[in-house]
């Protein structure tokens, strides 16, 4: 039987052949990722062992990754105590893939996993974070779960009762116009199919545009696939995947290039040509409230955020710095920049990008989730408007239910910071 890439991965991980959507499997897990919510996972994990004669030991410490990113450094004693509890657990259980609050190996989980070479094609990855969909960029089946489900994975090494999801095939063709890229494509797709258009399904990305896209761009589209409700986004691994893993992630061992079969059964096929796409903006308060930039340009903004697991990578910072270099951000605008990892921060420093941002008036923060989810730095005032390269604009998302968040690409964010209003970067910035 011809299978989609996820059917194939699940088939191998569960030792079952000829899987079809709706079949229930128990895939072995290759990587189980948590961040600060690991504190809750630990609590649930210990409960599983309560009343049993068994020692509460994780099934395989080498397959667990814990990355601190949501509140770094801790904003409160409560968070600091949660982080301390996790640190103690990590030491007790001998978990090596632990990324503490550090300038060298710290950063956002969805950047640390790929750049550390923890994710490979054909793997099954779960994470207690909805944007775990990101790692489909490397050809893994990677999806978000809750803390109790993660506790179950820590105990058993497999995910229980996983239903094989149907797959949507998205064919992307055409070359991106200047100042238009992966973020605009994924916002366009979410607008087209809606915030629940891919609920309980996987999106498999194909086509020349995806083939020519770097892993950084693929991470953007897989990251935001969850905003259309998708269980995961996935790009079949190819030459670029190998290049990234070998050159950027330092992976030396052999790779298992699982690709979909020709003639696999797709639930739906969507074709998108990006050659005439304009910069896309997600307007408040849902990610599928998408408009072309001309419909919102001129909108007054108070805060610009560049960063997050969606758009805090080196190419994002380079694009933004190119627009802003030698200019000043507008009066009464705050611009916050969050490199996605310590490594990216260092690279940006080496290329002079950090200086470009600072000279323009931006504040460069330490790697982490920052203001994206309104729990740490960069909260919004009453009625304020943010333009952000992050992935969610839900009411209250940046810490204030009376504020508004617009989502865009790094280049739109940078051009708008200079102008003080939402600005089309193609029109030039004065």
């Amino acid at each position, binding site marked *: 039987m011809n299978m989609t890439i996820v059917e194939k991965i699940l088939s191998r991980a569960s030792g079952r052949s000829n899987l079809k959507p709706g079949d229930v499997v128990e895939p072995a897990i290759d990587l189980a990722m948590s961040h600060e919510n690991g504190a809750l996972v630990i609590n649930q994990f210990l409960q*599983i062992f309560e*009343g*049993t004669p068994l020692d509460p030991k994780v099934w395989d410490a080498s397959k667990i990754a814990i990355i601190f990113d949501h509140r770094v450094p801790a904003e409160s004693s409560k968070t600091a105590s949660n982080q301390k509890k996790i640190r103690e657990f990590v030491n007790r259980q001998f978990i090596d893939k632990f990324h503490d609050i550090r300038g060298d190996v710290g950063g956002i989980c969805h950047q640390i996993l790929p750049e550390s070479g923890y994710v490979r094609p054909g793997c099954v990855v779960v994470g207690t974070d*909805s944007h775990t969909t990101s790692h489909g960029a490397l050809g893994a089946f990677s999806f978000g779960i809750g803390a109790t*489900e993660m506790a*179950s994975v820590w105990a058993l090494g497999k995910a*229980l009762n996983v*239903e094989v999801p149907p797959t949507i095939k998205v064919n992307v063709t055409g070359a991106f116009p200047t100042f238009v890229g992966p973020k605009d494509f994924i916002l366009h797709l979410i607008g087209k199919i809606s915030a629940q258009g891919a609920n309980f399904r996987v999106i498999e990305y194909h086509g020349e545009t995806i083939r020519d896209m770097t892993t950084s761009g693929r991470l953007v589209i897989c990251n935001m696939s969850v905003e259309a409700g998708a269980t995961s986004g996935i790009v079949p691994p190819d030459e670029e995947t190998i290049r990234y893993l070998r050159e950027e992630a330092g992976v030396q061992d052999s790779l298992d290039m699982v690709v979909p079969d020709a003639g696999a059964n797709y639930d739906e096929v969507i074709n998108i040509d990006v050659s005439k796409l304009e910069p896309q903006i997600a307007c408040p308060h849902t990610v599928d409230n998408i408009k072309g930039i001309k419909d919102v340009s001129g909108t007054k903004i108070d805060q610009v955020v560049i960063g997050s697991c969606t758009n805090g990578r080196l190419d994002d910072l380079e694009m933004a710095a190119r627009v802003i270099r030698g200019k000043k951000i507008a009066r009464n605008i705050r611009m916050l920049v969050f490199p996605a990892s310590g490594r990216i921060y260092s690279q940006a420093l080496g290329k002079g990008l950090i200086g470009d941002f600072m000279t323009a008036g931006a504040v460069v923060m330490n790697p982490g989730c920052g203001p994206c*989810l309104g729990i740490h730095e960069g909260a919004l005032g009453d009625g304020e408007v943010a333009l952000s390269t992050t992935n969610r604009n839900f009411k209250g998302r940046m810490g204030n239910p009376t504020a508004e968040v617009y989502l865009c690409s790094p280049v739109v964010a940078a051009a708008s910071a200079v102008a003080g209003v939402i600005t089309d970067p193609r029109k030039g910035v004065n």
Partner: protein
Amino acid sequence: MAKVIFTVGDDISTDIIYPGRYMATVLPEETPQFAFADNPDFNARLLSLKKNHQSVIVAGENFGCGSSREQAVSTLKGHEVIIVAKSIARIFLQNSVNLGLKIILAPDNEASEDDELEISQDRVLNTTTGKSFQVEPLPKSRREIIEAGGLISYTRARLLKDRSLQLSEIE
């Protein structure tokens, strides 16, 4: 008979159910105070529920979309409310099953605040309006976990079974 304490629209995110700034609070026994914290009216209605109440939150499509935070489920579970939604986002649905929050999928459901509902396995009868709505069964993979009383006890049973199998193989 259950009563609708409030209704919400489509795409209600976990940020609305449990705002991010309370995420440092993780333990299920501590999360209920922050349910719908950005809506003081809804929050107050939940906090004022008396023991053994039968209360329902009626939701539209894609309830619980967004973040995987389990607090969004434990905060509602703590109030023992029932969720009747047209559809529910995947992670929220799984978290609800895992923690034992009662969720009912009724794709055509219509109800207003204060309506009285009679909920059975296959339909929601709105006794205030006299209308009845079909209930969509939960995915089959989830029903086993509900029957086991949640994922903690389901996993505990599996773990003991797996380990005794391993032991018997060694012997």
